[in-house]
């Protein structure tokens, strides 16, 4: 092999040893692609020369299904997109339809929604932390994370009977009022949880190997992040202080105080710190909300048959992964004419190719982990 051979990729003049490249198929069956993501990697030694994501293995045509269901019937389907944050999906959908109908949920419902959504954010981030750590080789945090997540799932289970795909909210409010002891249990969890976050941070934040594996890896500048449409912790890790909960408050977020943690360098370590801080902030919101849940009805005035007036609406919420938007077009019938879901994972994943270029194979799993994707949502 001659040393002057070019690789055919812009910016990469030649491979280090002038040797052939290896093409590796990472996934769809691979321990750390978080589901059925497939990444085609072109390697020079272990360095990524070029990559391409292949997705769609979990495509179920959710948007098409929506056109054949009534508004209420479609609500459980959205839980199956980002199945580790089903409550957040449900909140986005219910609020979007409510906006389309021109109605709003009563205050009590909004506060309970906020509490459950924030708990879901914590549980989603916990699962992210555990899998991210295990991708980088730290086996133990996963089990601590699952232990706390279990407590949250128990609260969900007591509230609505389901743990994962909860279908917790209804269009117009809630079906179930809080159970006896909901406040006490949630409060106990929240008070306990801040110490637990300290535990995880003790294992990782100052760990030299962890820092070496995450600092400077997968850097996404603020301008790039905006250009790539990245949202959520990925955007905030790059230093853009933007959170829909603050920018365009929905549910009951304007009642509570919380900070938007941001990073500086936009690397994997910053995104890690941002998510850890977000868990603390979510905890803070929960603690404030649980203190006074207003009395009152839990269901607004919506009919049994929903016929939203002709028109369209776009509504988005800050899901654990980023901006989760619903664009719903109504033709005045009981079934939505078109439901478009703006999936945060899908659009964040788009940045992967850019982020892994020039890194090593080991960094690919770190970067996939830091994007916090759920393939159910990427493929829908």
């Amino acid at each position: 092999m001659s040393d002057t051979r070019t690789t055919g990729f812009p910016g990469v003049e030649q491979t280090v040893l002038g040797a052939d490249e290896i093409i590796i198929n990472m996934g769809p069956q691979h321990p750390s692609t978080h589901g059925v993501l497939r990444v085609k990697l072109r390697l020079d030694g272990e360095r990524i020369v070029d990559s391409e994501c292949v997705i769609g293995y979990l495509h179920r045509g959710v948007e098409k299904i929506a056109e054949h269901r009534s508004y209420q019937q479609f609500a459980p389907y959205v839980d199956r997109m980002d199945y580790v944050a089903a409550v957040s999906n449900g909140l986005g959908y219910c609020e979007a339809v409510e906006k389309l109908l021109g109605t709003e949920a009563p205050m009590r419902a909004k506060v309970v929604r906020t509490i459950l959504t924030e708990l879901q954010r914590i549980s989603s981030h916990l699962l992210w932390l555990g899998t991210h750590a295990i991708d980088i080789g730290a086996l133990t945090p996963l089990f601590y994370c699952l232990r706390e997540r279990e407590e949250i799932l128990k609260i969900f289970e007591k509230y609505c009977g389901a743990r994962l795909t909860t279908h917790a909210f209804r269009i117009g409010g809630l079906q179930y009022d809080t159970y006896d002891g909901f406040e006490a249990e949630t409060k106990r969890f929240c008070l306990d949880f801040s110490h637990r976050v300290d535990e995880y941070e003790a294992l990782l934040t100052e760990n030299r190997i962890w820092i070496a594996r995450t600092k400077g890896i997968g850097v996404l500048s603020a301008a790039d992040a905006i250009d790539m449409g990245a949202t959520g912790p990925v955007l905030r890790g790059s230093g853009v202080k933007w959170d829909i909960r603050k920018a365009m408050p929905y549910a009951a977020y304007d009642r509570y105080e919380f900070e938007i943690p941001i990073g500086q360098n936009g690397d994997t370590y910053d995104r890690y710190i941002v998510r850890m801080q977000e868990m603390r902030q979510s905890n803070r919101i929960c603690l404030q909300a649980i203190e006074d849940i207003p009395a009152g009805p839990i269901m607004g005035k919506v009919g049994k048959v929903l016929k939203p007036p002709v028109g369209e609406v776009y509504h988005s919420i800050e899901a654990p992964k980023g901006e989760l938007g619903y664009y719903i077009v109504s033709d005045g019938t009981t079934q939505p004419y078109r439901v478009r879901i703006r999936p945060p994972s899908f659009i964040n994943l788009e940045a992967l190719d850019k982020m892994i270029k020039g890194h090593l194979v080991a960094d690919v799993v770190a970067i996939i982990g830091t994007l916090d994707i759920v393939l159910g949502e990427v493929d829908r």
Partner: protein
Amino acid sequence: MSALLEFLKTYMWPLIFAVVIVAVLPLLAGYVVLMERKIMADMQARLGPMRVGPHGLLQPIADALKLLIKEDIIPENADKVVFWFAPVISVTAAMLAYSALAIGPFFQIAELNIGLLFIVAVSSMGIFGIILGGWASNSHYSLLGALRSTAQMISYETAAGLALVGGVLLAGSLSTREIVQAQHGGTWYVFVAPIGFFLYLVASIAETNRAPFDLPEAESELVAGYMTEYSGFRWAVYFLAEYANMIVVASIATTLFLGGWLRPFQGTPWMDFLDFFPPLCFLAVAGYCFYRTPKQPEPIQSMVMALFGGLCLLLAAAMALPFVPAFAASKPGLHGAFWFLLKVSLYIYSFMWIRFTFPRFRFDQLMKLGWYFMIPLSIVNVLGLGVYRVLRQLQWSRWPAFVLTTGGTLLVAIWLVWNAQKKAAAPSSVGDMTEAEG
């Protein structure tokens, strides 16, 4: 006929020991896996295997059976002969290393005057099994795993070897038995050469491909590295080789740094009550087993529990045997084996502890650690220990000599770390790869 008798007379014990090693080692490796899973479970707030036998005691046997009857898949385009042969090389190398190890003053297959050299040489042959297996699989993951393994082994073999040289320098012999005997009455070499011990600990983790240096089989990156395409029995053989290697490096460290089969405080008469520790230890385990026996959910589990308790009782009796005056001669052999295995277990425990605490290194970081830190430091360590020996021969007392040499080596270590940090602050980690690869 008489020739055969003569042969047996000379080689009976080595033959018996060899058979014991070959028969017991896989079992031992299986139980090391069980212990690892139990310890991991304990550190991760869960129970670990609990189903097969009481507290999962029969899990290794179930695992072994499962692996034996599993379908043996050879990939279509694999080099079949090499694919078949590679795991055998690995496990042979690992087992051969035991031939020169002394588990107690009595229990040793062959007393070689170059024992340590032989062990290091033979166990490093295991790398051939990994390279050939990775190459023969005809899979990119396996190939990358094998390449990583090669680079890693070569880098860390050097550091480990130099760390061992320190111990050899102190003992003045390569024979495992003589190294241990040199520590008799004096201090274990871990207290004379702590930096050497630390270097060997790190290097031996890397050499056995354990986390945080388990890059050749990093499951989140390379699926299973060189073992990706292996299944069933062949996979089990690789696994056996890995755990056997772990026991080998732990045995080397025990021999060289932890006083081998010697009891702690061997030379101190008032500490002799420690001789009662081995039988009492087994007695306690047996007592716990019998205490738990009626509490097992299934009668069969109670039975296994009682059996295990009986086994411990038997071992306790064996350990108590030297207290009977008639069998007093068996004491070094029996108790020696106990202390040796205990030290080996503690060493392996530290492996596991490290594995469950730390994230994994990246390949270039591993290489940098090896070449920029471990190897320079181990060279300085050898020099320091040489100086120590000279000072001792010049009739210096132990402490000033120790503080001088170890302190000096420590200063070099700090300088190396400081230097590396200064370097890391400037360029990006990606740009440095060329250097590390070259």
